[in-house]
């Protein structure tokens, strides 16, 4: 019953899984080598098209690891998820409602500061986040030293350094995905601490938002933030989603009643 709504939402995004297949979303800023990661992992097992109803490219690809099948969904490259563009809206809606078993966020090691912005936003939506710090070969060239252990502690999610061009670190990435998606070892991502005024506003809103009982669909704090910055399109989307889910549950119950009768 928990699975059903997710499945339906995935189909809404044009994602069809076959049998026991884990859905992995791939997010990242533009020009961070996201496509390289995607291509190296999936090889020729790709399917490209458009996101339903949008003129934005959608690429999906399969790969297997330890006899499990994974469907990798390449999200549009975005700097943020605050949905000012169609691309951001697609990425955000998929991470939020597509219920991927894990979301990989690809970062550019040479400009972590800007890239982490997206990562923090993804971590506000979902706990199933793996961060792939790509282009470490370029960072080495630029004499940048990154303390990955410390970064992992700061963010609370698995950090995998990679140089996708040379295939470096991709086995570790697959392993991390397996651990999270299959073995259900869930991370506990640290959350952004906002300035006092924003945090105060969130605190005021939280009881009202939690009372809605949407926690299973969306992180209440994230929802509170969207209410605060008046993201009307998102609020409408979540209302719509909540409605369809309730409908399904009602349908489910009615079915159950029929069976008992």
């Amino acid at each position: 019953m928990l699975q059903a709504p997710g499945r339906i939402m995935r189909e809404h995004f044009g994602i069809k899984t076959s049998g026991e297949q884990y859905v992995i979303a791939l997010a990242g800023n533009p020009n961070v080598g996201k496509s390289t990661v995607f291509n190296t992992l999936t090889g020729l097992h790709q399917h490209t098209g458009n996101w339903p109803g949008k003129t934005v490219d959608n690429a999906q690809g399969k790969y297997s690891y330890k006899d499990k099948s994974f469907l990798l969904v390449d999200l549009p490259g975005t700097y943020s998820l605050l949905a000012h563009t169609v691309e951001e809206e697609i990425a955000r809606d998929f991470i939020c409602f597509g219920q991927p078993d894990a979301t990989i966020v690809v970062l550019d090691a040479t400009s972590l500061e800007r890239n982490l912005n997206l990562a923090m936003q993804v971590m506000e939506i979902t706990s199933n986040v793996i961060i792939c710090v790509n282009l470490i070969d370029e960072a080495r060239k630029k004499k940048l030293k990154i303390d990955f252990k410390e970064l992992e502690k700061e963010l609370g999610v698995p950090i995998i350094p990679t140089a996708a061009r040379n295939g470096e670190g991709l086995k570790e990435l697959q392993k991390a995905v397996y651990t999270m998606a299959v073995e259900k070892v869930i991370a506990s991502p640290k959350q952004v601490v906002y300035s006092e005024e924003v945090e105060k506003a969130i605190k005021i809103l939280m009881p009202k938002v939690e009372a809605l009982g949407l926690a299973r669909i969306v992180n209440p704090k994230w929802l509170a933030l969207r209410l605060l910055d008046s993201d009307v399109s998102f609020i409408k989307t979540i209302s719509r989603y909540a409605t369809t889910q309730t409908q399904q549950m009602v349908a489910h119950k009615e079915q159950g009643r029929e069976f008992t009768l």
Partner: protein
Amino acid sequence: MTTLNNKMDPLMKIHSETEHIRLASGTPIADRVVSDIFSYTEKIVQKVVIREVSGQKSWKDKIDQIVISRVFGYPLMLLLLGAVFWITIAGANIPSQMIAAVLFAFQDILTHWFEVVQAPAWLHGVLVLGMYRTLAWVIAVMLPPMAIFFPLFTILEDLGYLPRVAFNLDNMFKKAKACGKQCLTMCMGFGCNAAGVVSTRIIDSPRERLIAILTNNFVPCNGRFPTLIAIASIFMASSLVFSQSLQAAGIITLIVLLGVAVTFVVSWILSSTILKGEPSSFVLELPPYRKPKFGAVLYRSIIDRTLFVLRRAIVIAAPAGAITWIMANVYIGDLSVIAYIAGALNPLAKAIGLDGFILMAFILGLPANEIVVPILLMSYLATGQLTEFGSLLELKEILIANGWTWLTAFNTMLFALLHWPCATTLLSMYKETGSKKWTFVGFIIPTVIAFAVCFIVAQTVYFFGLA
């Protein structure tokens, strides 16, 4: 079913309840959320990243601290803009006169040839006095400023300065309730308004996009810059006195700033009236400063821009020159056709500080703004007695002989900045909006503003008897 409907209401209810929190805070919450995330990640990065070579990075940061600082950002922009114009005007004078001397000497040779083969006078008139002379003026007046201005502009572009300009102006666009990306489309408009209109595709909100399309015309394009520079350098800096070229540069800077100001005001008015809404924010990536590649700058500015504009000007100016000459020499009763039209336009034109010829030149310049000045000069030269001239210095005398004052020059520049978009831009507007109505709005807004601003300036000056 009632439960389903109720599910929607609470969310929107909470949303409307948050309104007072939004109103209570000074900066929009959405902006604060973004800046909070950035300061949070900045702290993390400081902890986990060690830069072994820190020199280069801090060098770039130091420049950025000045270039996009609240204090120095705007003055620096003004200074650079002014400097570019000054170099252009001061530098264009001598080559302009040299080119003029050569081309007009050749006109005498051409005339001599026509005499040798005993060509009819009208043929000599159409081809030499009409077409050739217009072409000579286009090249002499427009080529040198363009050949200086475009490389300078390209250097700024290649240095990575333009995205910083966008960064500086973002706040202003926010205040005008428009998208910060409009700054980029505006910069594109400096190259070509038609291209600027097409480039608004980068703006996602249809509302903000329409605002960007409708206001793009208020920055002077490649075609109108030479008009502005030509008038400024002919009328205000025709002698080689340093202070005069400085003054001309100042006036052009002022004109451009006015165009930007009008962009803001019109954007604001549009978004408070027929295109209501809140601005959306966006992430702007500031590229690293790069050393411009000499060859690329030269190629792009000379081939792509200067020669492109010049070619367009020539293609349109040649027939326009011929037509202007014919119009100037075909008489209806006592008046030539050109004098007839100019006479009809004169009362309206005078009210806005221009004269009938100038207004006619702008109307005939609809296909391309590049030919406004050539048509203007042609119509003065073809009708007036002053047909012999040797240098740019004498151009000023021609203009003065035709009743120009500083007000005429200033208002001509204002009109050039604000008037209706060229045919290509209008066509692009139609293609982008797919609506005749919005294209018409895009035509009528600048037209009304141009007439209104020029009228107010002219009447104020007349009233105080300043010109």
